[in-house]
C-alpha cells in the first residue's frame, strides 16, 4: 500500500512585521519579510507524523501557490522532512481570492495525485480559514477539518474536532481533505541534516497552463470580491496609566464605575 499526502502551505508576510496594503489593495508582499505560515507548520508536522506512524509507503509532497519567494516556505517544509515540493507560480495569479486559490490548489492536488490533503486551520495573513472546506468541495471528497488530533489507518482518517459547543470525533474514508489546528502538536525544528538534505529534494514549478486554468479564472480582476477601501485603524488615544501604590484595584474600580461598567 502506498499513501500520497499533499500538504498545502502558504508563504505569508511576517505577522510581527509592519503589514500593510499595496496600491491595488492586495496584501503588500514586498516590504515585509515572508515566511512559511506558522499555522501550516502544524500541517507539515502532522503529515510527517502520519508518515512515520504508517507501515505503508508514504510520500509527503508540499504544495504552495505564490510568487517566487514562496519557495522559501517549500524549502522550510522540505527541511522539516517532506519528500518533494510543487510550486505553482504565475504572474496572472496576483490578487487571486480564496475561491480562485482553491481552484488552483484543487487542480494542482489532482495533477500531483493524492490520497490525503493536509492543510493548516487558516493562513496568518488572510485568516479566513475557508480554503480546506473549499478544497474538499472542489475535489468532491470528505472534509475532516479543524482537528486537534488526527490518525490514518486502513484507508480511514479519524480525528478530534474541538468545536465551540462540543468535542466531536470524526471519521471518513480516503481520499479526504484534513485541516489541523495549532493544538495538534508542536511542529519540529528542521535539523542541520534536514536542511542539507532539503537542498537536494525536487521542487517542481507549474504555471496556469500546466493546470489547464485560464487566466480569466484567477487574479485580482476576476476575484469574486472587491476591496473598496482599506484604512489604517486610528491609534487608540493614550489612556491613563497609574502605578499601584496599594490602591490600584480601587482606582481601577473607580474608572470602571465612571464608565458605567459597575
Amino acid at each position: 500500500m502506498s499513501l500520497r499526502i499533499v500538504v498545502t502551505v502558504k508563504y505569508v508576510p511576517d505577522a510581527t512585521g509592519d503589514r500593510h496594503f499595496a496600491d491595488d489593495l492586495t496584501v503588500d508582499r514586498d516590504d515585509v519579510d515572508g515566511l512559511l505560515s506558522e499555522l501550516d507548520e502544524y500541517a507539515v508536522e502532522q503529515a510527517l507524523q502520519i508518515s512515520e506512524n504508517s507501515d505503508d509507503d508514504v510520500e509527503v509532497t508540499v504544495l504552495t501557490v505564490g510568487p517566487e519567494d514562496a519557495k522559501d516556505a517549500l524549502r522550510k517544509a522540505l527541511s522539516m522532512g517532506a519528500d518533494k515540493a510543487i510550486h505553482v507560480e504565475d504572474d496572472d495569479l496576483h490578487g487571486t481570492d480564496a475561491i480562485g486559490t482553491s481552484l488552483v490548489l484543487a487542480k494542482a492536488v489532482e495533477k500531483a495525485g493524492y490520497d490525503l490533503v493536509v492543510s493548516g486551520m487558516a493562513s496568518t495573513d488572510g485568516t479566513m480559514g475557508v480554503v480546506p472546506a473549499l478544497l474538499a468541495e472542489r475535489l468532491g471528497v470528505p472534509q475532516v477539518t479543524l482537528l486537534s488530533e488526527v490518525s490514518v489507518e486502513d484507508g480511514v482518517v479519524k480525528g478530534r474536532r474541538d468545536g465551540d459547543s462540543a468535542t466531536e470525533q470524526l471519521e471518513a474514508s480516503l481520499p479526504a481533505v484534513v485541516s489541523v489546528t495549532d493544538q495538534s502538536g508542536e511542529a519540529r525544528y528542521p535539523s542541520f541534516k534536514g536542511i542539507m538534505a532539503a537542498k537536494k529534494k525536487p521542487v517542481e514549478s507549474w504555471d496556469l497552463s500546466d493546470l489547464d486554468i485560464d487566466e480569466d479564472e484567477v487574479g485580482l480582476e476576476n476575484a469574486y470580491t472587491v476591496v473598496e477601501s482599506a484604512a489604517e485603524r486610528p491609534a487608540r488615544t493614550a489612556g491613563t496609566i497609574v502605578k499601584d501604590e496599594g490602591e490600584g484595584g480601587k482606582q481601577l474600580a473607580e474608572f470602571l464605575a465612571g464608565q458605567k461598567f459597575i
Partner: protein
Amino acid sequence: MAEVLVYVDHVDGAVRKPTLELLTLARRVGEPVAVALGNGAGDTAAALAEHGAVKVLTHEAAEYGDYLVVPKVDALQAAVAAVSPAAVLVPSSAEGKEIAARLALRLGSGIITDAVDLEAGDEGPVATQSVFAAAFTTKSRVSKGTPVITVKPNSAAVEAAPAAGAVEALSVTFSAAATGTKVTSRTPRESTGRPELTEAAIVVSGGRGVNGAENFAIIEALADSLGAAVGASRAAVDAGWYPHTNQVGQTGKSVSPQLYIASGISGAIQHRAGMQTSKTIVAINKDAEAPIFELVDYGVVGDLFDVVPQLTEEVKTRKG
C-alpha cells in the same frame, strides 16, 4: 424589498445571540428570512420573529447531527433556490465559515468572512472587516453571484423588531457528499455558567503573569463579580493553565466586548489580534513597558495578585 437569508445558529432550539445580531444587520439590506436546521429547528421561530424574521424555514433530519457541515450546505443551497435572496448571512463560527464557503462555491458567488459591520450599498451589501491583527479596517463587497457573508459576534446590537416569523418547512435533498464525514461521537462542552467568550459584554483574561493553573481562580473571581467571560493568552494556554477554548488571539477566539480586562498579559501581536477591537481596554501588568499599555484606556502598573483581588472586592462592594 429583497429577502436576505440568515443562517440560524441554535442549540436544540435555543437561538444563540450572534444570530439575533445578524437579524439586526439583515434588516439593513432586506427582509430577513431565517433558516433553522436540525433538532429543535421549529422551536427557534418565536425568538427569530421577535427580532425581525419575516419567515423561518425549518428542516429537521438526523443528518445534521450525524455528519459534518455538508448537510447544512445542502439545506442552505435549497433555501437559496427557494428564496432567491439578495444575500446570505452566516454567523462567523468555525463551522459557519465552512458552511458559507462551500455554499458560495456552489452558487458561483464570492464570500466575505468575519465582517464586523454591514451596510446596504448601490452594488450590494458592503462589509467592514478588521484585518492584520486589527491594524486596518477594510470595506469590501461581493462582486459575483449572491453575496455570502459571515459576521462576527458583537458586530451589532440585538434589537426587538417584531415580524411575522411564519414557519415554513424547507424541502431538502441531501447530496452524495452529505454523508462523507461521519460524526462518531459528540461530547457537549461542560457549562461553566459564565457567558460565551465571543458573545460576552465583558471579558477578563489572564496571561503568563497569572503563573499557574491554580491562580486562575482570582481571574475567575473577578469575572464572576462582573458577570464576565474568562479568556486566556496563548502563553497561559500553552502552559496548560487554562483550556484552549478560552484562548483569545490569532489562533484562538477573536473577541470584541464592551470591556476587556487583561491581567498579566504583555500584549504580543498574537494576542492583540484577538482583542484589539474591544471598546474599552483595561490592563494590569507588573511591567510598565508591556505593549498592552499602548492599547489601554486605563492601566495599572502593579502586581496582579494585589490589584485583581482588590478590584474584585471593590466591585462586589459597589454592586452591594
